[in-house]
């Protein structure tokens, strides 16, 4: 196996690891209000 192939595999593994990390922490990175709090924040329908 060539050195370039090893680097390629390592880069792919690194990207996959980073993506898994982001997806697992998605609630921290993209916060949304609690459903009930959000509904209460809306003005009542006239």
């Amino acid at each position, binding site marked *: 196996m060539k050195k370039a192939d090893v680097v390629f595999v390592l880069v792919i593994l690194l990207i*996959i690891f980073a993506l898994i990390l982001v*997806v697992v922490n998605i609630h921290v990175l*993209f916060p949304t209000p609690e459903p009930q709090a959000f509904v209460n924040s*809306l*003005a009542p*329908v006239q």
Partner: protein
Amino acid sequence: MNFAQLPAIKEWVASWRLLAQSKAYLVMSAVLDALFFMAYGFLTAPILDKLTTHIIIIGSLAAEQLRVPAGRMRPAVIDLIFQPPVSQYTYQFLGLLVLLGLVVFVLFCLVQGTNWRFASWLTHRKLGWRQHLLQFARVNLFWFVLYAVWYCIDAVLDLRRIAIEKATGEPSAATGIAWTAVLVLLVYFAVISYPELSIRKGFLLGIRKATTMVPAAIILIAHFLAGNLVVRLIGKVNPAAMFIIGVVVLLLLIAWVRLYITLVVRRAAHGI
């Protein structure tokens, strides 16, 4: 007219024959495809969940802004979603779309690129795994950007529909079949570009060799419809068997599709 002499039919016979001879390919392809679907579900479900939440929030906030007293002009939905308080969720929504695109792109290029390489290896092209994957990613980057544009416009149309429905209380017109046809065309040219790993050839073959490619596409769709029908009929007798046979039929068809498209495109590519 002798149908057996049609390139799409000739390659159909050749592809099933090749698949029957290449058991190692069939197993590897099925394993990788199963892995792809599992990883796809695991990685995209939380993002899709967040996207849905954002669509509801943006739609509700925009609808609230659209409820203006009688006599005053309603602001445009597209302006509203980029103004506070909606804008923070719109930017998050766009960020989530980018993340979804990135996840699907990496996963697709890695797993499907490897599987397409197996199919190419069996038929004509002898590229190394790294080179094939890099070229596959380059070709897919173009298709993914086009797909992202399509998806964003579709999402904006959806948002607009939800906001108008919430504000007026009346159902709004759906996106329509023409917009779906654009996606079908996109997939058609993308799939044709995979065996030769060339966007230019994808378009050239898709248009100039449409007499070969369109019948091949119809044959391909017919296989999936027939598979679906068989699996549904089995489901009426035994639901558990439907799941197992459904998975087997799906993985088998996907493995065959790659060989079939590769053979059809290779034959058609000789003529241009």
